[in-house]
Structures are given as structure tokens and as C-alpha cells.
């Protein structure tokens, strides 16, 4: 179980997270939606202390970290319980696909090389990149790189995988293959917190939706309620705008044809 209590974060004078509380149960997939600048990525990065919250607690699997007193060792322990998938993939450029996946297993988890290699191959197969195991990241498409990013996170067998806009940097035709992989591992019961702009994907894959705006949680609940019956004005406006954009796109396309 992952719990966030009163997470606050400011950059300079600007308060970007105004005290966020969130509980994610084991096996749940939670999507965080919201307009850009709402603080959703910052919130995700606070969970593994890539950004250190100014205030609040992060609890992962009964391990509690107070943002104020947290020392290096606690942060390290927290990070070993989590894994992250980045918007820009951030694969280790000087390592091949399989080395990327093995790195954490060998260096952080101290597994023997052969065990690590076997485990890495299994995960790489799961994301459908067996033939690319010995390629360098630069030789892969964006979609393939992101699937390696997911494999790297998955191999660590973390309590939770944090996905930070995993498809935002991808060409539109590559989005699908990544979403499909995420969907597949979601079905395996892996706990995930996803920051995304893909509303229909979020609807499809999530057990729970959190809608954020201006550094606070505006509304949260199960997808059918949030999408079909949002209570808050800001949530309604957000979905209306997104629907309108999709409609516009479609009519533009029709006009073009």
C-alpha cells in the first residue's frame, strides 16, 4: 500500500503542491489527470524523492519517510521499493537493452549475474523486445525505448511503478504499443501510479482516478464516476475541453479529406 500524507512542495515562493493526500492499494492502478502545471508530475517525483517534499509523509509498504527528517539511507530504502518510468525514457545510453534491465538487479539488488540475466530476458520478452536485447537505446524507436524503460522498472519487482507521462514524448503512431504494454502489466496486478494525458487510456486501465489542478486534488474516485458524473466545475471544464479538442481534430480530419 502506498500512502501520501499532506505532501507539500514549493519551488522558490511558488507553492506547487498544497498538501496532497492519496492512498493507493496493492494491485491498484491510479491515474493522475489534470491540466499542465497542475503539479501532477511533481507529486509523482515526490513519491521517490526525486523532488524532496517540503512537508508531509510518504509511506510505501509500511515504510514511512518524513520529508523533513528523511536521511539518505531512508530515501534509498524508499527508492528500492519503487521504480519509475520517465517521459524521456532516460535509458542508460552507454548500456544495451539487457544491460539497462540488469543494472539495478546486479548493482542495487546484488543478484548474481546469471540470475539477473535470466530475469532480465523474461521481462524483455514480456515487453516484446527479445530480438533487441543487445541493441543500444539509440538504435531503438521511441516506443521501443519506452518499453525498455518499463522492463527496467518491472524487473526490480517494486511495490509500485511510477509512470511519468510515459507516452507524451512519442510519435502518435508509437503511443499504442506502449499503452498496450502498460495495460498488460496492469492486468498482472502490479501497483501503478500513472501521470498521463491519455484520457481514454486512463479510463480504460485505471481503478481510480485523481484529478488535480493548481497543486491540489480537485476530485477523485472510480473512473465511471469521474468521467461520467464529475461533481466539480473544474473537472467538468477539463473534460469538456479535451472532448472538444478531440472533436475538433476529427472534424479537421474530415474537412481535410
Amino acid at each position, binding site marked *: 500500500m502506498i500512502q501520501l500524507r499532506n505532501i507539500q512542495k514549493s519551488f522558490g515562493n511558488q507553492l506547487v503542491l498544497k498538501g496532497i493526500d492519496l492512498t493507493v492499494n496493492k494491485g491498484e492502478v491510479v491515474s493522475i489527470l489534470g491540466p499542465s502545471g497542475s503539479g501532477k508530475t511533481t507529486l509523482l517525483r515526490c513519491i*521517490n524523492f*526525486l523532488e524532496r517534499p517540503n512537508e508531509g509523509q510518504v509511506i510505501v509498504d509500511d515504510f514511512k519517510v518524513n520529508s523533513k527528517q528523511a536521511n*539518505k539511507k531512508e530515501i*534509498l530504502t524508499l*527508492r*528500492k521499493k*519503487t*521504480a*519509475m518510468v*520517465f517521459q*524521456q525514457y*532516460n*535509458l*542508460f*545510453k*552507454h*548500456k*544495451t537493452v539487457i544491460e539497462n534491465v540488469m*543494472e*539495478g538487479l546486479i*548493482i*542495487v539488488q546484488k543478484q548474481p549475474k546469471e540470475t539477473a540475466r535470466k530475469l532480465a530476458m523474461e521481462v524483455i520478452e514480456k515487453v516484446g523486445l527479445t530480438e533487441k536485447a*543487445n*541493441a*543500444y*537505446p*539509440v*538504435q531503438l524507436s521511441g516506443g521501443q525505448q519506452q518499453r525498455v524503460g518499463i522492463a*527496467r*522498472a518491472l524487473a*526490480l519487482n517494486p511495490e509500485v511503478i511510477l509512470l511519468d507521462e510515459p507516452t507524451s514524448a512519442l510519435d502518435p503512431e508509437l503511443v499504442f504499443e506502449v499503452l498496450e504494454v502498460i495495460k498488460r502489466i496492469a492486468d498482472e496486478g502490479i501497483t501503478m501510479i500513472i501521470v498521463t494525458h491519455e484520457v481514454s487510456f486512463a479510463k480504460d486501465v485505471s481503478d481510480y482516478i485523481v484529478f488535480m489542478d493548481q497543486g491540489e486534488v480537485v476530485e477523485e474516485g472510480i473512473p465511471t464516476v469521474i468521467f461520467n458524473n464529475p461533481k466539480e466545475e473544474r473537472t467538468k471544464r477539463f473534460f469538456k475541453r479535451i472532448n472538444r479538442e478531440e472533436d475538433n481534430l476529427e472534424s479537421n480530419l474530415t474537412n481535410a479529406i
Partner: protein
Amino acid sequence: MQIDIPFIFTALTEIFKALPLTMIITLVPLMIGFLIGIGITLIRIRKVKGIYRLANFYVSFLRGTPALMHIMLIYLGLPLLIDKMAETFHWSIQSTSIPILLFVLMALSLTAGAYMSEIIRAGILAVDQGQLEAAESIGMTGFQAMRRIVFPQAIAISLPNLCNIFIGFLHTSSIAFIVSQKELTGAANIVASNNLKFLEAYIAAALIYWGLTIISEKVTALLEKRVTVYNRGGVA
């Protein structure tokens, strides 16, 4: 004055015998300087309290003065210090028993350290911040992330600069002749004064330096190809 072309070749073979010493005076400082450079870089990047300013001063002063001064300051200053210390603590060493070469290597190591630290620092800063974040996100310690992820990429980025500093130090090693080291330039000097053919001897020495430089450029090109395989797409 007539130029004695055949003598250039005679001088060439004679001077060439001094190559090992030139290599020592070039490579030893670069290797020690590399280690110093890593240390200084880490202190400056992490802004380690207390010694951070000292590190800045070191880089600023050593890069702000010619290598010749470093050799002179160490060669003239250090013996005074050693003799004074020996007297105070009743050690049995005397500065005159220390080979001059050691002072030269010490001085040039300090010089190299300052230049190396700037090269390594630039390399580390050029590595994408996301690489460090990815390493941290999988639970690596700062040291592990530096050693396994950031540093190897920083060195690959720095390779052209490291080649430049090698060539620079190959040429800088020539000033060791000032304190009577018989490296290439020192040897050229001896050959020149023994035969009273100065121009010929220095042409020969110049040719040797040039040849060495060309070879090291070729070697770097090969190294660069190998180290940056991951950056070029193409073959794995």
C-alpha cells in the same frame, strides 16, 4: 650559415633515444592529474564545505600560471621545505638526494590536475540530468550512479579534450630541459651544442614531436570510435 641536412638524420636517431623519458614526463603527470582532477571535480560539483574554496583556488592558480613556473616553484621551493622539516623532525632525508625528475613529475602532476578537473567537470555537466535521475530512481547510491552511469558517459564525451591535453602535455614536457632533464628537448640541446649544429638538432626534435602528435591523433580517433559506439546508431 649552411644547413647540414644529413646531420638532421644523425641527430634524429640520437635524440630519439630520449623518447622514454619524454613519455614518462608526459604520462605520469597525466595519470596522477586525472586522479587529482576527479577529486577536485567532485569537491567542486558537490560544493564540499571547507575545501570547496581551496579547490577553486587550486584550479584558478594552476591554470592561471605557466607550467614552467610550477616546475620552478616546486624545484626551488620544495627542497627548502623538506630540509626545514627534516631539521625540525630529525628526519634523515636531504633534498639533494631526491632526483630532480621527481620534482618535475610532482609539478606537472599538479598542473595536469587543474586542467583535468576542468575537462572532467565539463564532461560530467554534459551528461543528461535524466541519466542521474534514472540511476537514483532504481535505488543506486550517489557514488554508484556516478561510477556506473554518469562517469563513463562523461569520459566518452571528454575524449577529444583528453586527447588535446595529452598532446599539450607532450609538448609541455619539453620545458623539463630547463632543470637539466635529458628528454627530447634536453637531448636535442646536447646534440646541438656538442656538434654546434643547433638548427639541425631542433628540426630533428620538432619532427619527432610532430610524429608523436600524429600518432596520438590516430589513436584517439580509433578510441573515439570504440567508446562512442552507443552514440552512433549503426552497429552494436
